[in-house]
C-alpha cells in the first residue's frame, strides 16, 4: 500500500530520464549551433515583410491616413482591428507565467518562456497601430501627461484611449520585466558555457552578474512572485480597458456592458491559440518534444475550448440583448448588419461564428486535443476568427450607426493598410526568430525546478522509493 497517490491522468511534464546537464544541453544547444537554412529563410521572409510594413507606414505618415480606405463614417477599420487582435494575442504569455505561477501549475514551465516572448512581441506589434493610426503621429507625445508650458495642459483622463496608453504601457513594462527576470539564470548558463569572448561578454552583461548563489535564487524567487502578483490583475485589466474603447462609446454595437469579460476571454482564447501555433512548430524544429509535451498541448487546447465557448455565449448574449432591449439601433446592428448573412458585412460575422464558436468544439474529444495537426490548424483558425471578431465589432458597428444618411459605402482595405498589418507580422516573426536563435526558448532553470518532481525518470524512481519507504513505515508501526 502506498501513502502517496497520484492520478493516472497526471502525466510527466518532462519525458525521458533527463539529468540536469541533459536539460541544459537540450535547450542551450540551438543557441550555440549555427542557425539552420530554414532559420535563414524564415528570417529573410520576416524581415522583408517588416520592410514592406515600414514602407507602408512611411507612406501613411507622409501622405496622410488617406492612404487607407477609412472614411467619414468608418473612422477605424483595419488599424484598430489589428491593434485589438495583437493585444489579445499578447495575453497568453502573462496569463501562463503569472496566474499559473500563483496557482502553482507546474506544467507552465515548458511553455512560459516562449509564451511570454510572444506576449512581448505581440504587444510591440499592437502598439504600432494606435501610434500610427494617428493623423499626426509626430504629435503622439501629446497623450503623455508630461509637464508643459501650455497651462500646463493635461491629457483628458476621461478618454478610454488615454486609459489604453497607461494600460498597455504598464502591461508591456511588467511583462518585459517578468520575462527578463526569468531569463537571467538562463543567460548565466549560456554565459558559463560560452566558448567565445564576445558571447561571454554579451551574455555576461545580459545576466547581470548572476552567480547562482542561494541569496540570488531567493531574491529571484521573491521577485518572480511579486511580479506575478502585479501581472495577474494586469492580464484582466488590459483587455478590459481595451474593451472600454468601445463599451464607453455611444455607437450601437459598441455600447455594451458585456464587453470586459467577453474581451478578456477572447484575448486568452486567441493568445493560447497563437502560443499553440508557435510551439507546435518550435518543439519540432528545436527537438524539444520532451519538454513541450502532448500534455502541454492538451492543457492549452482545454483552455481554448473553454474560452471559445465563453465568447460564444457572449455572442449569443449580444444577439439576445439586441432583440430583448427593443432598441432599434442595436437591433439593427446585431440582427441586420451582423447576423444577416446577406447584409454587406454578414460574411464577417458568420466567419467569426464558424471560426470561434463552432470549430473549437472539436476539442471536446481528447483524441483531437492530442492531435498535432488538428491543434495547429485550429490554432490558426481561432486567430482568423478572432480577427473577424474585432473587425465585426469595429466595422459593422460604425458603418451603419444612428443616422441612415451617413451610412457608409463599402469599406475594404487599401494595399497600404494590408501592408501595415503584414509589417507587424514581419516585426513579430523577426523578433521571434531572433529570440529562438539567441534566447533559451524554454526556461532551463524552471524546468530543472520541476524535473525532480515531475520528470518521467525521476517520477519512476521516486515512486519506487516512496513505496519502499511506506512499506517500511507500515511495517514499523504494525508492532
Amino acid at each position: 500500500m502506498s501513502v502517496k497517490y497520484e492520478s493516472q491522468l497526471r502525466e510527466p511534464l518532462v519525458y525521458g530520464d533527463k539529468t540536469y546537464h541533459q536539460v541544459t544541453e537540450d535547450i542551450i544547444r540551438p543557441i550555440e549551433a549555427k542557425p539552420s537554412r530554414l532559420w535563414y529563410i524564415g528570417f529573410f521572409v520576416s524581415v522583408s515583410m517588416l520592410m514592406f510594413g515600414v514602407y507602408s507606414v512611411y507612406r501613411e505618415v507622409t501622405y496622410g491616413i488617406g492612404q487607407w480606405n477609412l472614411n467619414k463614417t468608418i473612422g477605424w477599420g483595419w488599424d484598430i482591428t489589428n491593434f485589438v487582435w495583437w493585444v489579445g494575442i499578447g495575453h497568453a504569455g502573462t496569463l501562463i507565467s503569472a496566474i499559473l505561477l500563483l496557482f502553482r501549475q507546474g506544467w507552465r514551465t515548458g511553455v512560459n518562456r516562449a509564451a511570454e516572448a510572444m506576449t512581448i512581441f505581440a504587444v510591440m506589434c499592437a502598439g504600432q497601430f494606435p501610434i500610427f493610426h494617428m493623423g499626426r503621429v509626430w504629435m503622439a507625445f501629446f497623450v503623455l501627461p508630461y509637464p508643459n508650458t501650455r497651462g500646463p495642459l493635461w491629457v483628458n483622463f476621461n478618454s478610454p484611449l488615454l486609459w489604453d496608453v497607461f494600460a498597455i504601457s504598464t502591461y508591456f513594462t511588467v511583462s518585459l520585466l517578468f520575462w527578463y527576470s526569468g531569463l537571467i539564470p538562463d543567460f548565466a548558463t549560456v554565459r558559463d558555457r560560452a566558448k567565445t569572448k564576445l558571447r561571454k561578454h554579451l551574455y555576461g552583461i545580459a545576466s547581470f552578474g548572476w552567480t547562482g548563489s542561494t541569496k540570488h535564487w531567493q531574491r529571484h524567487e521573491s521577485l518572480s512572485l511579486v511580479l506575478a502578483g502585479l501581472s495577474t490583475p494586469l492580464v484582466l485589466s488590459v483587455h478590459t480597458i481595451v474593451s472600454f474603447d468601445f463599451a464607453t462609446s455611444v455607437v450601437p454595437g459598441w455600447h455594451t456592458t458585456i464587453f470586459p469579460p467577453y474581451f478578456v476571454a477572447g484575448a486568452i482564447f486567441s493568445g493560447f491559440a497563437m502560443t499553440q501555433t508557435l510551439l507546435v512548430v518550435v518543439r519540432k524544429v528545436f527537438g524539444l518534444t520532451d519538454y513541450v509535451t502532448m500534455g502541454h498541448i492538451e492543457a492549452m487546447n482545454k483552455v481554448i475550448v473553454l474560452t471559445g465557448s465563453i465568447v460564444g455565449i457572449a455572442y449569443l448574449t449580444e444577439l439576445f440583448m439586441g432583440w430583448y432591449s427593443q432598441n432599434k439601433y442595436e437591433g439593427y446592428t446585431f440582427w441586420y448588419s451582423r447576423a444577416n448573412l446577406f447584409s454587406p458585412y454578414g460574411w464577417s460575422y458568420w466567419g467569426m461564428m464558424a471560426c470561434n464558436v463552432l470549430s473549437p468544439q472539436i476539442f471536446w474529444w481528447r483524441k483531437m486535443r492530442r492531435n498535432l495537426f488538428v491543434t495547429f490548424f485550429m490554432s490558426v483558425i481561432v486567430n482568423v476568427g478572432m480577427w473577424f471578431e474585432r473587425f465585426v465589432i469595429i466595422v459593422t458597428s460604425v458603418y451603419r450607426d444612428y443616422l441612415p444618411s451617413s451610412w457608409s459605402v463599402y469599406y475594404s482595405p487599401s494595399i497600404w493598410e494590408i501592408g501595415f498589418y503584414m509589417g507587424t507580422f514581419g516585426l513579430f516573426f523577426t523578433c521571434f526568430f531572433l529570440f529562438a536563435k539567441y534566447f533559451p526558448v524554454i526556461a532551463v532553470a524552471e524546468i530543472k525546478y520541476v524535473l525532480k518532481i515531475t520528470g518521467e525518470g525521476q517520477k519512476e524512481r521516486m515512486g519506487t522509493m516512496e513505496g519502499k519507504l511506506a512499506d517500511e513505515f507500515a511495517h514499523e508501526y504494525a508492532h
Partner: protein
Amino acid sequence: MDKKHWQSFGELNNSEAFQQSAKNEFNEELPFEADDKGFMETKTPRRDFLKYLGFSTAAAAVAASCEVPVKKAIPFANRPEDIVPGVANYYATTYVQDGDAVSVVAKVRDGRPIKIEGNEASPITGGGTSARVQASVLDLYDGARLRFPTIDGKEVTLEAIDKSLAEALPSAGSVVLLTSTINSPSSLEVINQFKTKYPTLQHVTYDAVSYSGILLANEATYGKKAIPSYRFDNAKVIVSLGADFLGTWISPIEFAKQYAVGKKLSEKKLDMSKHIQFESVASLTGSNADDRYLHRPSETGAIASALLAALGGAGKDTITDKDLKAAIAKTAKELSEHKGEALVVSGSNDKHVQVIVNAINEAIGAGGKTIDWSSTNNARKGVDGDFAALVESMNAKSVGALLIVGANPAYSWFDAEKFKAGIKNVKVSVSFNSKADETTQLCKYVIPDHHYLESWGDAEPKSGHFSFLQPTINPLFKTRQWQDSLLKWSGATADYVSFLKTYWGAKVGGENGWNKVLQLGVMGGETATSKVLTDLNIVPATVALSSAAYNAGSLSAAVDATKAGQTGIELQLYQKIAIGAGQGAANPWLMEMPDPITRATWDNYLIVSPAMAKTLLGIDLDNNGQADSYEVNPPKHVVEIKANGKSIKLPALIIPGTHADTVGVAVGYGRDAKVGRATVDEHKNTVGANAFPFASLSNGTVSFNVASVTLTDTKDKYPVALTQTHNIYNTDQGNRTEVMKELTLAELKKDPTVVLDDREEEAKPFGGLANFRKDATIYGSYDKPGAKWGMSIDLNACNGCGACVVACTAENNVAVVGKPEVLRFHDMQWLRIDRYYSGDANNPKVVFQPLMCQHCDNAPCENVCPVAATNHSSEGLNQMTYNRCIGTRYCANNCPYKVRRFNWADYSGADSFPHNQDELNDTVHLMNDDLTRMVLNPDVTVRSRGVIEKCSFCVQRLQEGKLKAKKESRPLETGGEGKKWDLKVACQQSCPTEAIVFGNVNDKKSAVTAHRSDNANRLFYSLEQLHVLPNVSYLAKVRNREEEQGAEKKEHA
C-alpha cells in the same frame, strides 16, 4: 538764401540720367512670383499695389495656419484710409449671370473679396442667396479666366484690338449683338448708343434655357411679351406643372422666399399653403410638394388642358390614366375652392401649354392676386425663334459682324453644329467673355470681360426694382467691361463708370443720391419687408398688385394642339441647382456640392425610376441584398441613351419620384476643358456629357422633352461620387423617428401636441422632458450664464436648395477634395443636407434636414479625445483645437450625427511635409494654386493634414458680433422682437427662406428663443434620446395632407 545742396554731380547738373533715376527712385519690384501665362510680365504698377498686397496677405494668412511659419507679409507703408488690417469691408453689389441678378454684399478683406452675402435691403431676395450666388466669388479667382485680349488667339493690347475693330466693324456689313438676357438699364442704353453708330445693329437675346413659351403665350393672351411677377406668398394653393420654381425656374430665390411664407406654420393658426406638383423627373420643387403626381413629359399639355376642363374652362380632357384623372379632379377641386388665392405655373417651354395655363389662372382669378402685372420679371427675355433665325441668316452669310456677350450657343444650342458652321461665315466675330468657352473659341476677337466683382453696373431684375454693381477689387487681369468697349466703339469719350453715373445722376438725386443707392445696393421695391430698409428710414412706395387684360383668342388653338401622351421611354432634360445650364460646371464648390435630389457630386448621370431600374438594370430596391449592394458600391451601371440619332453614355442613378417610363439627364455637363479644370475628371476625360443636343425646336421654342428614347445597359460600370447612399430612416428593426419627425397637417390639427407627446414618452423614464436634461445622467448639471449659442431649423421652411452648404464652404475654408476623394467618402463639408424618403417607394415623400455639428452639451466626442483637443466652451460651443488634435478619429466614430470630418490628406497645403500633395487629384491642386487661395477667409484657420474639423457655429462671426456689442457697451442682440442682429452665421445668412435661426438662447427675447418657444409643439432634437443634449433644434416637417403620416409609420413599425 538760394544755396543749392547737391548730393551728386548728376543732381547738380540735372542730367538726363539723373532725372530718369530720380523718377524711378523706388524701382524694385514687389516680391511676387510671376505666373507663366503673360499675366504678370509687366512690372508692378503702383495702382496694383492693393492687389499684390491682398495676394501676399492671403498667402501669409494661409501660411499662418497650423505650424507653417509665415512666409511673406508686407505691411502697409501708407495705410489706405478705408482699410484696417483684419477688419472686413462690405460693399453692396449685384451678382449678375445671364439674366439672373441678385443683390448681394461682398465681404472684402485686405483688398480681396472673399465671401458673398445676400443683401438684406433687397425687397426681392431679402438677403437670400443661392448656391450659385455663394460660389460666384470663387469664379473671380478662377485660373481659367482669360487674362488678356486676343486676336486669333494671339495676345494683343486693348488699343490694338480697338484699332483693328474700328477698321473692321464699319466695313463688316450687318452687325449683330448676341447677348444673354440683359436687364441692366444702363447697358441697354449703351447698346442704344452703339446703335446710333451702327444703325443696322440687331440685338438678339439668347438664353440657354429660355422661357420663350411663357413670353409668347403672354404676348398672345395679355399682349405683353414679358414674365409677370408671381406671388407664391399670396397663394393658398400652388399647382406646378413641372416648374422647378424652388430650384431653377425664373427666379428661385425670390420664389423660395415667397413659398416659405405659406409653408411656415404658426401654432396659433394651423394653416399652410397646399402645393401640388405634377412632374416627370424628381425635382427639388416636387420633393417639397404636399402632393406629387407623376406623368410623362409628353402629357404636360394634356394635363393642363384637362385641368382647365375640370375647372369648367374650354379645355378638353384626354387623360386616360386613372390615378392622373383623380389627381386632376382633386387639384381642380382645391383650385376652385381657393379662387383668388391660387396659382398655377408650368415649366413647359411650349407656348400652347402656357396659353392654357394662362387660361387656368384666369379661371381661378390669379391675376392681381398671385400674378402681378405691375412689375414684370426680367430674368429671361430671349425667344428661341429669334436665335434660330439668326443662325439661319449666319448660314446664309448675311451677318457681317457678331458681337457676343454672355451667350454660349456653341455649347447650349441644341443644333450647335449649325451655329458653328454659321459663325465661320461671319467676318468679324467678337467675344466679350471672361473664359474661353465653346463659343469664344470660335471668335476672332476676344476681349475678356470683368468678373461682376470687378465691374460697375446696374440691374433691373424686376421692373422698378434696381440693383447696383460696384467693383470690390481692381481687375486681376487685363480685362475690360464689354460696356466700355461698346462705348468706345460708338465713339463716346466717357467710360462706362461716368456713363453710369450720368445715367443715374438725376434719377437718384445727384452725387449724394448715387452714393446712397450704391451703399444700399438697391432701389425701388413694392413692400417694406426688409428691416434694413426700416433701419435706414427708407419707406418704399407701395404699389398695388395689378392684373392684365386677358384675351382668350389663342386658347382654342392651344387646346387643339395638345396631344395625348406618347408611349415608350421619354427623356426629360433638366437643370441642376448647382450647375444650371453649365454656368457652374467649372466651379469646384458647385461641382462638389451634393445635388439636393441625388446627393451626387462631380458628375452627370441618368435618373431612372425604381421601376425602370428593375427592368433596365436588374436592380430591385425592394430586395434588401440588391438594394444594399447598389448603395454601398459606388460603381453604377452605364446606360447608353439614344434619341434623335444622337447617343451618350451615362451612369444610372435610381431616384424615386421619377415617372416609371421617364428618365432624366441634366444639361450643363460635357463642357470644354478650357472653361476650367473642374470640367475634366482625374483621367482627363470630360465630366458628363452634353445633353443639349437631345433638345429640339418646335413651334419656335426649344423643347427639352425627348420622346422615343432607347436605353441599353452597356454592362460597364462607372463610379458616381455620392455623399449619401442610404435614403430611408425606417429599418426592419423599427422606424427611426428620433432622427426625423414628419407628419401631416391633418394629424397636427387632430392632436397638436403629437410630436411633444412622443418626446415626453421617450423621456418618461427620467421624469419627463422637464427633468430629462438633469436626471438622465449621473453627473451634475450646471448653470450656463452669459451667452449660449443655439440654432433652430424649421424643416417646413427648408427646401433643401443647398445655398447654406456653399456658404459654409466659402466662410470656413472648407476643402474641396475632388471626385476621387468624395468617392471614398472623404468629402469635407461641415454642413450637409440629409434627404430622407418615406412612404411609397415609387413616389416618396421627401424631407430635407440640414445637419451640422449639433454642439451637444453632453458631447460624446468630447470625453473620448485623449488629448482634450475638442472641448466645450462656456458658451455652449463644441470647439476644435486643431493644433492639439492628433487625429485618433475616436471623436468621429463616437459622433452619432457623423458631422466630424477628418483631413485624410493635405487638402489645403497647410501641412509642412514636402511633396505630400503629390498624389492628390487635380481638383486639390487647383484649389491650392496661389490665385485660388486668395478666396480663403483669413479669419478661419486652414486645417492641416491629420486633424479633425467640423462646424464651429462660425465662431469667428460670434467673436466679431460679441466685440461689436461690447464696443457699443450694450448687450448682444441676436434678432427677436425689435432687436438687431449683431451676427448671423453663414448658413443662416445665406438662407432664402430664413429656415435657420441662430442666436443666444440665454436671451429670452432673441429670435432663436422665440423660434423655439413659439413652436414648442413641433420642436424636436435629433436623436434626443441619447441625452447628448444638442444645441440645434428642428421644427418637425408638416405636409398639408389629409392622410395620416402615421399610417405609413405603422406599416413599417
